[in-house]
């Protein structure tokens, strides 16, 4: 892999994916820092990993189930208690679909 430099364009893309609004100055500021960091990470390309299984987690547990029995959930009041804007029992958000929705 050639020297990895994150372009402002790529940072804008990633910021959009991560839903982080930022100014052009911030985009450039982060692009420089992240490029520097990614440069250091290139060293993992030195290794031969052809026959190695990925390790996504550190435990031997798989498919941990519990009996399908209902328990006591949060009440609606509890669930809404920290919400910035509500119309109980709902969380209030801007229009999701349609003109001007951004979706």
């Amino acid at each position, binding site marked *: 892999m050639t020297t990895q430099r994150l372009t402002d364009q790529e940072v804008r893309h990633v910021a959009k994916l991560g839903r982080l609004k930022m100014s052009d100055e911030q985009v450039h500021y982060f692009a420089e820092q992240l490029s520097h960091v990614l440069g250091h990470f290139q060293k*993992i390309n030195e290794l031969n990993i052809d026959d190695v299984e990925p390790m996504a987690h550190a435990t031997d547990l798989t498919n941990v189930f519990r009996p399908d029995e209902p328990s006591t959930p949060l009440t609606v009041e509890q669930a809404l208690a*920290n919400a910035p804007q509500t119309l109980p029992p709902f969380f209030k958000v801007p229009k999701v679909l349609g003109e001007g929705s951004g979706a």
Partner: protein
Amino acid sequence: MDLTQLTVTELRDGVAGRKFSAQEAARAFLDRIAARDGTIHAFNEVLADEAMLAARAVDEGKVTGPLAGVPIGIKDNICTTIGHTTCSSRMLKNFRAPYDATVIKRLKAAGAVMLGKLNMDEFAMGSSTENSSTGVTRNPWALDYVPGGSSGGSAAAVAAGFCPASLGSDTGGSIRQPAALCGLVGIKPTYGMVSRYGLVAFASSLDQIGPLARNVRDAATILDAIAGPDGLDSTSAPLDFYSASQGAGRDLLGKLDEPIKGLKLGIARQYLSDANGPAMRQAMEKAIAQFTSMGATIVEVDLPHTEYGIPVYYLVATAEASSNLARYDGVHYGHRTATPEDLIDLYAASRAEGFGDEVKRRIMLGTYALSSGYYDAYYLRALKVRRLIRQDFDRAFEKCDALIGPTTTGPAFKIGEKSSDPLQMYLNDVYTVNCNLAGIPGLSICCGFDESTVDRHPLPLGMQIFGPNFSEAKLLRIARMFEAANNHHHRRPSI
């Protein structure tokens, strides 16, 4: 008698034996916090009324247990129904958790008295507690220096005598490194030993909650109270994983003071690197000589993939974080932007306003590593190297009971010294990240002091002891052997 000088064990025994009341103990610590935390800023929130209520319940005999009357501080990323749970982020500044984390339920059941919530790097992302939206925490040993991070408040509070023990969390070293920089014992348990239910998630395959305390017995006592399977955390290990055949098992306290005969301790040459400062090198040489004189055999081992830990960690952890932090969207809880243009802007602006720079950096790194076109080259590749790191440890543990090495390359650094270079800050974690990646337990214990700093403040140094999965009982015994031979744990900062 200054109750704030007492250990967890002494406080528990004192309350049980009616030498003093739980309320007197809580009052003593609260008074000390009020007098001195203005300088240190270990606490985000002191919960004095709640603490006195809990202490009174102990004194009235309504609550009993192995920690009855013992005051404790809680890192601010662990959900408590009292006070707030802010993760030191503007995003969660006003958040009140609707439920207690499992570890909190267990501490309450044990009779512990929570004094408040402790400062940290925002969302546990950092190694100095300089990334906190509430301000930096100062190292009680030298006020211009960092306490480490991300559990900096947890470490500073114990070192300053604001509580005899605290809970922290460790994803890449965030308990062990601040414990090392503040002269404490800090334990990152085996992944799965302590429930993560109610721990605000940073990296789900790496996070663990653990204790910080001034001595080994205290740390073991706290760990004992919070460890064990939990139906609410599907990654928590069932009891039969705590294999007694490893000479370890679930009993952390029964044989704590029994020295281990015929101990084989491994040292990896990769941990004795040139990056270690002279004081750290000296402290390690002294430790090795001491263990040898105690009858242990020192074995040289090879952990060839050590240097790849940082890139692997900062790809895996940030990838997981980018997913875990997606929930902060200005809708269900947390900060919401005032005048969004539309739904997407609601998300993007709320997050931009609520998160600090380091959190944004890590979300972007993680998003990039997982994104189309880069997933194989970065995230997948990192997961494969992760397995190689794990295999290094498996091979090493065939030759020794446990590994020792420095927790950090040197003592605490000055506030502001590394905060402008993210990569330099990341490299602080070189000796700690691999335990999280592999899942194995690690603890840090004070192994000496660096007396050479320019301002003549002695700064603590930490040694790591790490072992196979569920070997905590053995690691604690080794730590106890070392502690008894050195007595660093009796030394206090002059705060």
